[in-house]
């Protein structure tokens, strides 16, 4: 238990916890956005993330292992997944909004199945890895703890995205319309907004984020089948803890999850994933709509 008091060890855990948290925030923010506005629990969000990772891997082969090549791969992956999101929303999801929740869940699960096999079909089942862009492959030492530049980049990117979202939602006229759509779809339509295309826009934005986080995770985790199912559960825990549809809640949920995982290892080494589910259940029991969410009827 002496580890508990070792500052170097604690700082290392803090670093890894924050990196996990910010990664999860990137992916969970899209999930939360879709629930907040479209009122749909999108299981396929993890699949979009996986597709983003595969496209990024494929593009680094084409563009080469330079920093610019990596940037290009990230851009292509994000835009490609956004385009896929556009097709899914316009041709399929659009017809599911008025259906019962059960059928909506089943629909997004059907997409999970289709996308997971499509990825196996296109990219095979063997794991792929992407090397970090040269510009971010270094690291520095602080108080004896190694801080890879890539981790720092991710830790900084999370708050930037959160701030960007906040500006979009609270300081622009689009944001006002989006918030109105979350509250009352019919009334907004009656006031002359094209809600149908607004929904498409939201889904495309969320898909873009999923593709982006998939591309950015590729240098850290290996790109394998099954990463979709694994991430969607983690993103769910985060979003449920923070509150479905709440941006700051998602950020809070990510931090709670990431730090629980990092420090839970100290207290019960084998049961840290267990702790995350317990927190999720506890939040649902006490405040079903999450720590910072609002009850949805």
């Amino acid at each position: 238990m002496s580890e508990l008091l070792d500052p170097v060890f604690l700082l290392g855990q803090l670093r890894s916890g924050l990196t996990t948290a910010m990664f999860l925030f990137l992916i969970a923010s899209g999930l939360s956005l879709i629930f907040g506005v479209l009122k749909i629990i999108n299981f396929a969000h993890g699949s979009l993330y996986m597709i983003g990772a595969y496209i990024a891997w494929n593009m680094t082969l084409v563009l080469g292992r330079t920093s610019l090549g990596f940037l290009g791969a990230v851009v292509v992956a994000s835009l490609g997944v956004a385009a896929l999101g556009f097709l899914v929303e316009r041709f399929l999801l659009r017809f599911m909004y008025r259906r019962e929740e059960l059928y909506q869940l089943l629909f997004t699960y059907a997409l999970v199945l289709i996308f997971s096999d499509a990825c196996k079909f296109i990219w095979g089942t063997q794991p792929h890895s992407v090397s970090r862009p040269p510009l971010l492959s270094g690291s520095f030492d602080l108080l004896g703890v190694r801080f890879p530049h890539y981790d720092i980049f991710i830790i900084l990117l999370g708050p930037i995205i959160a701030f960007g979202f906040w500006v979009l939602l609270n300081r622009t006229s689009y944001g006002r319309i989006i918030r109105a759509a979350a509250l009352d779809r019919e009334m907004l339509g009656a006031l002359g907004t094209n809600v149908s295309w607004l929904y498409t826009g939201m889904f495309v934005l969320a898909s873009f984020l999923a593709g982006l986080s998939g591309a950015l995770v590729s240098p850290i985790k290996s790109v394998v089948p099954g990463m979709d199912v694994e991430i969607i559960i983690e993103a769910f825990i985060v979003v449920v803890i923070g509150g479905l549809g709440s941006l700051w809640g998602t950020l809070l949920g990510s931090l709670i999850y990431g730090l629980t995982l990092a420090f839970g290892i100290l207290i019960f080494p084998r049961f840290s994933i267990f702790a995350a589910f317990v927190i999720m259940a506890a939040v649902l029991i006490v405040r079903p709509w999450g720590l910072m969410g609002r009850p949805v009827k």
Partner: protein
Amino acid sequence: MTPAMPTASARRIPWTFVLFLVAAAIPALGSRYYTFLATDIVIFAMFATSLNLLLGVTGLVPFGHAAYFGVGAYVCAIFMKDLGLPFLPAWLMGGLGGALFAAIFGFFCVRLTSVYFSMLTMAFAQIVWAICFKWNDVTGGEQGYPNVPMPSLAWMEWIPWIGGLRTDQKFFYLTLILAALSIAAMRRIVHSPFGRVLTTIRDNAERAQFIGINVRLYRLIVFTLAGGFAGLAGGLFGIFNRGVFPDFCYWPKSAEVLIMTILGGIHNFWGPSLGAALLILLNQYIVSYTEFWPFVLGLILLVLLFAFPGGVAGAVSALARRAFSFIAKG
């Protein structure tokens, strides 16, 4: 969403009994493969029917029903192998285990509705999965719990014809009888006054509350019952599978049984059984052609969602109704 209304002539035939007889004839085909498939289908029919007590009857969407299936499988297997209990008491303990977990988790779950209910059931199921996955000393952890003993089937020796059959065929009969009893019990529950109250709650929980029904209590009772029957199904499956694995409780298993139930149709008592049979047969058929079964299943789901919102049983009964009314008109 109106349930099927068979005409008088169709009602006179005891369909349930016919179904039982057809199922009982399967080992007579002699094929090990058909018996294997039939056992699988019977167990999952029972599991899916237990899910439908919540889904179609009470109007709750559980997303963690596999937890109780898994608990039943582990309890039954552990009681038989580690504690040396005979099959029947171990199997009943499995059902009791499922019911106990469902009662504890259900106490919290039934306080929530709609999507929050689904998510809390999933969270609890994942907790069960995490425990089974990590608790090496009892559940075998990630490696699973292998070599579950076969129940003693010696007592079947005196039954003419069945006595001379292979073990897998005898186990099929054991499964068929126990599943038929369980499904009959569930049918009794659905058609009892208690079941009618559940349907009232499904149709309008608020009104049910107004006329003095304790909605939460009813939901808790049916949640416990559903967990118990899922546990019984799990106990049989653990033996059939000759091992119990954490995957039994993992969330894709919960999704699988949900798909079966919806595929068959949730507004017909036999819908889930039909769905279990269809999904398992489709799986076997398609896997023999391509390894991309999930892809095909995804497409099937899309077709189901866009073309047959009432499930296959709903589509068949609508067709049957039209055919009967056509015949009646002459």
